[in-house]
């Protein structure tokens, strides 16, 4: 198994998204910036990798009552609706992801704390998901 996109997140027991911190202004970006700082007021062009907070709060969420088309990879056969969350991290970033296996819209609410997990996308690839903290 390997990450769906190499370098965007770590794996293991405590996986984390990998962003960048601007050497000039400290602005944190995800996915990591490599050319120019995303802060319009900064002309920084040197960045350090930084692991983002593994926990954040649900900014908003919805679900998919119908099976989305490719490039979405079906999780179940037959299809079952699943939840999608936009999660606000302490760094101020909002990161979209699916809600972890075994959890749905009934298990989350806006403002609830969630934790990043890495789960299989298919037989080969891994992606990040958001798991409710009970």
């Amino acid at each position, binding site marked *: 198994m390997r990450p769906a996109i190499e370098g965007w997140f770590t794996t293991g027991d405590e996986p984390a998204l990998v962003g960048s911190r601007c050497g000039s202004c400290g602005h944190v970006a995800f996915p990591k910036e490599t050319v120019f700082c995303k802060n319009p007021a900064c002309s920084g062009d040197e960045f350090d990798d930084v692991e983002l907070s593994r926990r954040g709060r649900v900014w908003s969420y*919805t679900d998919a009552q119908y099976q989305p088309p*490719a490039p979405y990879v079906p999780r179940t056969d037959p299809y079952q609706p699943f939840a999608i969350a936009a999660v606000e991290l302490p760094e101020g970033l909002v990161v*979209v992801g699916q809600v972890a296996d075994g959890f749905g819209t009934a298990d989350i609410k806006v403002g609830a704390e969630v934790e990043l997990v890495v789960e299989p996308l298919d037989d080969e690839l891994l992606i990040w998901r958001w798991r409710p903290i009970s």
Partner: protein
Amino acid sequence: MTLSGAAAIAGIGATEFSKASGRSELQLACEAVTAAIGDAGLEPSDVDGMVSFTAESSAEIHVARNVGVGELTFFSRIGYGGGAAAATVAHAAAAINAGLADVVVCWRAFNERSGERYGLGQANRPMDTNADRAAYSWMTPFGLSTPAQWVAMFAQRYIHEFGASSEDFGRVAVLDRKHAATNPHAWFHERPITLEEHQASRWISEPLHLLDCCQETDGGQALVVVSAERAKDLPHPPAVVVGASQGSGEDQHMMTSYYRPSISGIPEMGLVGDQLWQQTGLRPSDMDAAILYDHFTPFVLSQLEELGFCGRGEAKDFVADGHLELDGSLPTNTHGGQLGEAYLHGMNGIAEAVRLVRGTSVNQPGTVANVVVTAGTGVPTSGVVLGAAR
């Protein structure tokens, strides 16, 4: 040289609104354009300007050749799906005001139900061919791929911040279907719904039920814009373009502006509204009616707040108190909206606003001296205020 009052909509024309037109999008466009020119009491040869959407599949030159329009001195296209609707009138009025054209036709036509269905979102479209499509790749691989889902994400946050509920969205669905029920051109003609039916309709993406979602429609709608002076000599009472504006907000995305400090509003519509009130010298309380873009019910609430008809978070009470009813302070979507009449990317709503000014809506609420019309929500958008001749 002010835009306010310089131009007027003198003609409107549409095809039937259906689920399967049985003919090409070009033919729908030509039928609507021809009808609108006829309604204005003009000939195709009088037309020298054409404005449509970048999403339109029939280019100006094809429509022009097929309906008998000759030379064109002004033509423009506006992007961002339904956000372009009122902007077609803005571009037409600006062109006329600047002397670039005399008679400008605005139109939109598509087989949106029997052909390419927008509700499917990014279904199987390539994502690596341009920046617009690449932007969707932040959403689509997660299975967040349809307009209903994109709006649902805003709506869930709106519910959280303002204590709103699905019933609050449902009241918009009920209102629009009620108006559609008495409109023979509407898909929901003679089919009003109840709030209970709204609540019982299936989930599309939480918190959106099926009945929170607009129609999918085949059809075409066109408008003819001329100078306000010329409009006085044409058959119908002019619908004067009192104000017209476009707006794109900070950190604007296509229906997925989730990375702003707040997502319980749609600031691009606030920007449109601020310009309208500034241009016209009018205030929200001066509006006798409104046509608010309603592809999904939650953004109708946001628009009432962004345009200043009520305060932040107050739209649910504003709607529940009956302000949008025909006998309320702001009769809204009198044709049934895109929820009830047809989804014509907002252009059918502009036509309804013209009928309101003419006094010929099937649900005419009385004399309408000023009506505000908005375009697509969650996207770079536009708005107009149409009014009776000054």
